């Protein structure tokens, strides 16, 4: 029963779209109602299943899924000519990512209530994006994984180009093409992975039992890692994200930064590092050098920007850099920190973009120099933004702190010179983060208010609910990190075990 429900997670959004197809676009309220209901339903479903996974921990697992501790394991033959199967399964890590997605999708649906343009299509696209993200996190078969992974490009472009603002075509293309560039690298290495492994299965469970030839790993790992890293905006492939976010509508920014950017990091962990641990050990210490830009310079760039979305985009870039720092640590704490950061940053950036979107709807500008003192008129949104800011600068009590402390402690334990230096720099750059966040919040919310904002109205109930739920999620993880960390540990254990067992090859030897 639970397994069936689990498979429904990605199906429900699609079914919702199908249900809405025959409804004429003029009945926008009905359509929105259906979508909101479906979003809420999936959220409840994922919440229930997360609880089930939690409750089931410790109980015996199906033999086929045992190496990865997967629950709700489903394996159905799919494309015979490719040996591709439909394989999905849940563990702590992806369950939480699914939960994150469900929350963000739900929030995204609610915040786009008043979106201009063809609402029917917009909501359908959101649901398809949701399907894609759900699918990525659920699938344990590489073909299935990739199908879902690449699917997002389709919805992304349409939503940005059709419903965005500013240089929407430019932003949308930049985003879509860069992501496509990343996924093309992944696709190429996937083939190599399949044929070099000599396996007749794309299943992660099966492939994880095989040690790939080192010579293959050495070139495939960087390609695949970079491919995934593109969507998590690792330097130098981060350039798509500021322009993309800036031109995207609110919900898309939320989804893109909140969950889509996590798909890359998730892929790095679940696929690249898991299947090619030997190469990971060789390459990751060098990858860390790139993080200097992400983590250290990213906040500085944010400091120089005036557009709220650009600021948030660079903030995302720096936070996502931390994920990679955690991954590069190759310690259980670091990996856990990275996973926590994925989840935490999802909520965080969702909240950021949600409040920014709501403020933008009112002020019609995102330039912080044009705003000021609007806290007086929109206290709720102001507080929401401030909370996002504080969570973003790693204030204890919010999830970001938990994740960051894990990452720092985990990464510091990695005994490589470069990693240490970057870790130290990363720790020290929490100040810079504070500087740009406070500067932004102060300019926007505090100080003198231009007269034109006298008529602003605060958030309505729908918007309030979204903000409150996101804040609650941040708080929940921040205050009670123990149980989520335990669940994450379970799913990271097999990955770390493989990494720990791998002997890094001697280069040139």
């Amino acid at each position, binding site marked *: 029963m639970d397994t069936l429900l689990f498979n429904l997670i990605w199906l429900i959004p699609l079914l919702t779209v199908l249900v809405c197809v025959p409804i004429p676009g003029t009945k926008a309220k009905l359509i929105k109602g259906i979508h909101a209901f479906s979003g809420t339903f999936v959220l409840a479903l994922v919440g229930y299943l997360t609880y089930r996974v939690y409750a089931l921990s410790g109980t015996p697992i199906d033999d086929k899924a045992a190496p990865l501790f997967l629950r709700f394991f489903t394996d159905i033959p799919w*494309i015979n000519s*490719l040996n591709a199967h439909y394989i999905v399964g849940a563990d702590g890590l992806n369950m939480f990512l699914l939960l994150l997605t469900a929350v963000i999708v739900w929030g995204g649906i609610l915040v786009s209530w008043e979106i201009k343009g063809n609402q029917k299509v917009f909501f359908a696209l959101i649901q398809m994006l949701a399907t894609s993200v759900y699918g990525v996190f659920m699938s344990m078969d590489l073909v299935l994984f990739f199908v879902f992974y690449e699917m997002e*490009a*389709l919805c992304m472009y349409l939503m940005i180009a059709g419903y965005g603002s500013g240089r929407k075509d430019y932003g949308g*293309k930049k985003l879509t093409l860069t992501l*496509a*560039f990343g996924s093309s*690298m992944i696709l*190429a290495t996937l083939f190599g992975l399949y044929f070099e492994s000599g396996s007749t299965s794309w299943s992660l469970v099966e492939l994880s039992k095989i040690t790939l030839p080192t010579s293959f790993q050495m070139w495939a790992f960087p390609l695949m890692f970079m491919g995934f890293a593109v969507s998590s905006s690792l330097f130098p492939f981060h350039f798509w994200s500021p322009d993309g976010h800036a031109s995207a509508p609110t919900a898309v920014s939320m989804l893109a930064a909140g969950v889509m950017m996590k798909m890359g990091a998730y892929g790095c962990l679940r696929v690249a590092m898991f299947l090619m641990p030997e190469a990971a050990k060789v390459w990751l210490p060098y990858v860390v050098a790139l993080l200097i830009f992400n983590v250290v310079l990213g906040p500085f760039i944010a400091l120089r920007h005036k557009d709220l979305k650009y600021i948030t985009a660079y903030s995302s870039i720096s936070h996502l850099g931390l994920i990679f720092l955690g991954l590069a640590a190759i310690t259980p704490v670091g990996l856990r920190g990275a996973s926590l950061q994925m989840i935490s940053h999802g909520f965080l950036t969702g909240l950021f973009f949600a409040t920014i979107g709501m403020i933008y709807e009112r002020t019609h500008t995102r330039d912080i120099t044009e705003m000021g003192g609007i806290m007086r008129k929109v206290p709720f949104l102001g507080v929401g933004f401030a909370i996002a800011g504080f969570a973003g600068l790693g204030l204890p009590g919010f999830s970001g702190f938990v994740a960051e402390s894990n990452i720092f402690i985990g990464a510091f334990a990695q005994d490589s010179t470069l990693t240490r230096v970057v870790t130290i720099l990363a720790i020290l750059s929490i100040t810079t983060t504070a500087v740009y966040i406070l500067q932004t919040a102060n300019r926007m919310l505090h100080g003198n208010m231009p007269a034109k904002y006298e008529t602003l109205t605060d958030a309505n109930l729908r918007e309030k609910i979204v903000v409150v739920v996101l804040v609650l999620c941040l708080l929940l993880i921040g205050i009670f990190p123990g149980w989520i960390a335990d669940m994450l540990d379970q799913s990271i254990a097999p990955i770390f075990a493989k990494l720990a067992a791998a002997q890094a090859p001697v280069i040139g030897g």
Partner: protein
Amino acid sequence: MSFTVPNFIIPDLVLLILPFLVIGCRLVIKNSKLPWRLACVGLIAVFVMLNFLPLVGGEGNYFISNWRVDDFGILMREVLTLSALLGLLLAKDYFDHGADGKPQMNQIAEFAGTVAFATFGGYIVVSACDLLTFFLGLEMATIPMYILTAWNKKDQMGSEAATKYILMGSVATAFELFGFSYLYGFAGSISFDVIQSAAAAGTSPLLWIAVLFLFCGIGFKLTLFPFYTWAPDVYEGAPSPVTALLAVTSKATAIAFLVVLIYGPLAPVQEQIAPLIALLAGVTLFVGNLGALKQSRLRRFMAYSSIAQAGYIMVALLGPADTAKTAIIYYLFLYTLANYLAFFVFGVIGHRREESFDSLRGLSKQNVSLATALAVAMFSLAGIPPLAGFFGKFHLFFSGASTGHYALVVFAVLNNVLALYYYLQVIKSAWADEPEGELTPLRMTKRQIIVTFLLTAAVILMGVLPHLSNNIFAGFSL
């Protein structure tokens, strides 16, 4: 003398008779709707019958020792028939109405007949067991295409296109013939089996010259680099439905030709010609993609797009027979669907407007279903999942990678990004750009609506649910 007609030959016979019936019908009965309907019904019947043929695997069945119907042949027949059917459906509107009230094209019965002849040419190619049949099939598939291109006698562009096409086509035929002659000289026979065993026994320069000329000749039909130059001009000059047919039927025939050749007589030397195939594939898809980057006219754009697609298809030819055949057939199916879908949308747009990117502006606001169909077609051609095109390309690359050609696969996959760029240009025009001035209203006939809907559904579903497509996957044991 009596012999029974085996089941597997019936569709071929029906298709052979069909053009005569259609044209004959037109001569006898003045009701102008009947021939077209007859043609459609006939093609549908052929398609259905083909679907009833069991896939037998292995060598297939022989009919008088010289006509082989194997699994690849059956499935290729399906592709060709589907293409012809869709082509007729697409063309119908051009024969009915024009922008100025007069039909754009005339003589639908002859048109349908010619299309059927071309399709039968494709049948011959996939059934051939010797060079002569092979050659005849290819010519039978090509010559009707010349005629179709020049269908509008009064259209200056059309006749220019046809002239270019036929002149270059003749030269390509000469190349091919030259290749055939050396192959004949190499093996001393025109039978595929003999050639194959001769090639397995040992090679000689004769064989390589033959391969070179054959590839160059077929490169013309398949629009490989640098033999593609005719394609953009001809695609643009030819009437719209003919362009679609050119892009699908002609290409499918050409690729079938290559498959038959490479996995038939040339199978023993496949490994030696792999570098040539890889080079052709890589350069072609790159050049096709580059050419399409900044197009403003839709049909020329589709020409470059189909050049690039040809390059992608070539990637699959590097793989082992079964994998490659599966990949190619599957890809052709999906390519047919997506391509025709695009042409149907262009047909609706181009009815009152110029067939250019600018005409697409504001489409999403005017008719969101049509815009969706266009987006589906474009994303499918670009190879974005979950649309069918992605799975097609996945199969192609899978086939190419299975023999370790990772570098080519990486290159091809990276080119996909380039391809995505220009497909996005189309989508951008339809979805993001504001229309300039008043939009002329769009008119869709019921037929167009139904076909567009079916094609959209098929493009969305065929990839995700591959079992729907006549179980071609069960047919080839992998």
